[in-house]
């Protein structure tokens, strides 16, 4: 208990506490009593030096994961009333628990009760976060005291580890914003320049919700206001969060936007976006490409549900591939000679017959009709033996039924009526020269079409990287991993994602994945991520084994994190660290876009008043 004694002499400018003797102090964690006048909060990084009997020092670095106050010297909970009434003397014990992140040198002796504790700043902060062991770092956000969290780039780009996984509740966890902030930090920070990789590191971002990401290249009108508010609240002074992070406050550079076309036919291929009028390119696949590049598998999101169905898909894919190879001349349709529509039960409309009696298939519906003819109708319902491959008609019908089921959704994306030039113009090229960031808007697409687009584009990147190898890292940002790579069941897109997760590291494809619940995502995808990030979590979710990398106190806190605050865990630092990151410098809605010739309101007002 304290008397009215002067502040103990150990409270110098930097000491904030003394290690307590009433709780165990161990090399992995200890409690310290906060000195009067000092303030300690959770996530503060602290340093302690103890001395071995031979006089050599051992330093402990750690992160405060628990702080508490209580009355000491009183026995009953209700004694607080007597204390406040002024009849019972008691003192407040203010104590903090530290999880050790590093012992330097690695002599795992316990610190001694009474050893002074101080905030880790400067060189000690670097040691606490193991930044001295990192050759290339980028900013992962700001710590609670305004210092920068370094993230080891070699654990992101695949050299020592790869992939980033972000979990959190939709809306409040701001997963996509943080993913974009990390990309911004990588692209516009200094790390790529240090490595001379600035020109050919790319990002492929799938926009799955709203049109949030279609304004990445536009400055945000509200960023100054928001950042000034935060700066004033945290007392950062003139130096804002972007300046502290060493990042420019500007939108993404060299961005292309791809969106699906609005309609399934017609010559005018217009991107299906509502908020942004210019700068968005529509993307379509040609029917011939569909066959030639074996995209059929991505039409089926549940191919593994039946072995036989998988077999049929594989076989039809092979047939279509051969068919595409036999095509002569330009165009995007498929010309077939062996289709007798009169034998079909249902003749598709608008079939175009050519001079030799062949038929040119110009849309996805016709392609399905043709496949149906080959499987179930030719030869009085026997089908073409090469296509059928002795499969049960029931399985074949199931195959057609599923094709018909997704026909409506995929027709706008797969076109056979375009000219070769159109096809080339609208082919999605996510690795286009001069483009650093590609945003593919799939939020308007139905689920099967989303699966198809993501699957095909990812495979394209993957195949490209298999050819060119590791250099030129490609970051793939994909939210809703629960949907694309669920823990249960198989799908072609899950296979691609698993490939990326497991082999992408060595190929330089880095998945920045996000999901609401890591427990419902394929375990191998989550476990392959070197950097794990958690925003606000559902409390029940936070107790699942996927989050065991968070110490208990962090798991509890994950339930109350505010937007803009994340827990970041990286391999170099044994404990996760809480960071905040700045408001986006890029617009996330049309009304946030800063108009270039914006004039001060006073000036406009004066004009209106006729002054």
């Amino acid at each position, binding site marked *: 208990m304290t*008397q009215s004694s002067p502040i103990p002499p150990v409270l110098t400018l930097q000491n904030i506490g003394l290690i307590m003797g009433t709780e165990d102090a161990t090399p992995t964690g200890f409690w310290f009593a906060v000195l009067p006048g000092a303030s300690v909060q959770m996530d503060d990084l602290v340093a302690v030096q103890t001395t071995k009997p031979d006089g050599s020092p051992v330093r402990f670095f750690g992160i405060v994961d628990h702080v508490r106050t209580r009355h000491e010297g009183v026995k009953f909970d209700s004694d607080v009333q007597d*204390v*406040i*009434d*002024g*009849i*019972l003397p008691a003192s407040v014990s203010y104590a903090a628990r530290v999880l050790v992140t590093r012992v330097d040198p690695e002599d795992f002796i316990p610190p001694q*009760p*009474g050893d002074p504790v101080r905030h880790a700043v400067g060189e000690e902060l670097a040691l606490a976060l193991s930044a001295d062991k990192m050759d290339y770092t980028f900013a992962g956000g700001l710590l609670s005291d305004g210092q920068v969290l370094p993230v080891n780039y070699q654990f992101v780009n695949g050299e020592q580890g790869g992939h980033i996984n972000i979990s959190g509740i939709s809306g409040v966890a701001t997963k996509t914003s943080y993913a974009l902030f990390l990309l911004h930090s990588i692209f516009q920070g200094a790390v790529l320049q240090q490595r001379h990789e600035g020109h050919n590191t790319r990002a492929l971002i799938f926009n799955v919700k709203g049109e949030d990401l279609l304004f990445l290249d536009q400055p945000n009108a509200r960023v100054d206001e928001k950042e000034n508010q935060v700066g004033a609240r945290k007392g950062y002074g003139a130096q804002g969060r972007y300046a502290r992070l060493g990042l420019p406050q500007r939108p993404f550079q060299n961005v292309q936007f791809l969106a699906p076309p609005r309609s399934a036919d017609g010559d005018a291929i217009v991107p299906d976006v509502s908020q942004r009028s210019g700068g968005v390119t529509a993307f379509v696949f040609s029917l011939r490409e569909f066959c030639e590049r074996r995209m059929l598998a991505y039409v089926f999101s549940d191919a593994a549900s039946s072995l036989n169905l998988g077999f049929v898909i594989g076989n039809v894919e092979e047939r279509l591939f051969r068919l595409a190879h036999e095509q002569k001349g330009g165009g995007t349709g498929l010309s077939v000679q062996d289709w007798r529509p009169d034998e079909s039960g249902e003749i598709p409309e608008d079939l175009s017959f050519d001079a030799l009696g062949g038929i040119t298939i110009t849309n996805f519906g016709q392609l399905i009709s043709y496949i149906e003819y080959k499987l179930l109708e030719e030869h009085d319902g026997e089908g073409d033996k090469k296509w059928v491959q002795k499969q049960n008609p029931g399985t074949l019908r199931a195959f057609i039924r599923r094709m018909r089921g997704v026909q409506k959704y995929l027709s706008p994306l797969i076109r056979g009526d375009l000219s070769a030039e159109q096809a080339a113009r609208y082919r999605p090229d996510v690795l286009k020269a001069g483009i650093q960031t590609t945003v593919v808007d799939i939020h308007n697409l139905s689920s099967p079409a989303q699966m198809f687009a993501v699957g095909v584009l990812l495979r394209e990147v993957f195949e490209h990287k298999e050819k060119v190898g590791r250099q030129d890292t490609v970051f793939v940002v994909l939210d809703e991993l629960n949907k694309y790579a669920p823990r249960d069941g198989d799908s072609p897109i899950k296979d691609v994602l698993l490939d990326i997760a497991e082999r992408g590291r060595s190929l330089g494809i880095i998945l920045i994945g996000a999901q609401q619940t890591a427990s419902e995502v394929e375990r191998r995808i989550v476990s392959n991520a070197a950097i794990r990030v958690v925003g606000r979590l559902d409390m029940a979710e936070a107790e699942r084994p996927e989050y065991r990398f968070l110490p208990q106190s962090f798991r509890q806190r994950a339930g109350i994190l505010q937007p803009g605050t994340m827990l970041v865990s990286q391999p170099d630092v044994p404990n996760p660290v809480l960071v905040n990151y700045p408001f986006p410098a890029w617009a996330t809605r049309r009304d946030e876009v800063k108009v270039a010739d914006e004039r001060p309101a006073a000036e406009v007002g004066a004009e209106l008043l006729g002054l």
Partner: protein
Amino acid sequence: MRIRLDPWPVDTHSAQLTLTPFRGNVFDVEGTWRAIAPRPLPSSLRRVLVVDGKPRMEARLLLEDDAQELSVAGFGAYAVGAVDLCPHGTRQARFHGVEARRLLAHSGDLRLSAEELIPKNPQTGRLIYDPLRFRGTDVLGAQAAIQKAMLDAERALASALASALPLDEEDPDMSPDTLVLQDGPVRVGEQGRAVLGYIKSLHTDYLGADRNPLLRDLKCGERTPILRFTVGDTGEGASAGGGQASGREQRFTWFVRLAEAEFYQHPLAGVMRLEMHAPEDVDFVPRAVRDIADLSGTLLCRLGSVPHKDGRAPQNLVPTAALEQEMGRRLGNAELVTRRIRAHLAGQRARA
């Protein structure tokens, strides 16, 4: 027959109530024998200090001098201190001057220097026992010497802290701003100071059968009128007109009820006796004493403890209990001290 419970736990060294009759003279000095209602605390009273002390015998010793003569001695310690509080609750209570001292009490003419117990671990601190001589050869003498040293320290602290209190008949401006509540009777040497002794147990019956019933009827906070008696008056000098008692200290005393007695307790369970110095043979009550008596009910009801937190409730006041605990802490863990003493003596032998 009705059985009633004494409220204090049986392991405390005495009961709350024994009521041995007081054999000397007790004078009514405040008029009619009736219950007097408490008055609110005056705003001039800014500070109340609850003073207490705690002695402890740590080891009994046998000293052997160069001539192989034996004498008894003891290692002991005491702590005294105060809780400083504002009676109006405007600030938090805090400990004031809680300090412990260690003594080597010895008899005879030995010339001893302080015994210093040096710790093996630098963090555990030194124990220094200063020599203190007492008369006699009784082994209890050491304990008594330490107790007396403690009482002296307690008295010195109390009189240093309390406001001066001139005991005039009527002087409305002399109400004290600092009042000391001292555990036990007031002591010689505290005259002229605002020191109020509170006696937790009722061991002496100053009232007699005719006045006692009022104690049962007191409501919470109410007090009896003030009485005056002479310390150590055995009644033998009464026939000589009180002249025998002159030269001895005189006291004012009154009783206050802090809490209603439960139906199963004896009816004096919540009652406490208070005591202040009285000027010699006066037949009036000084204004200052009456003011303190008037506020004592209000003040003590505020400070009284509750049975589920303190076995000696309500007489063992909340600040007193906290002070006792703090003094125990300052004295250190008795077991560890005993171990240190043993190690120290063993070390002396090894050095010899």
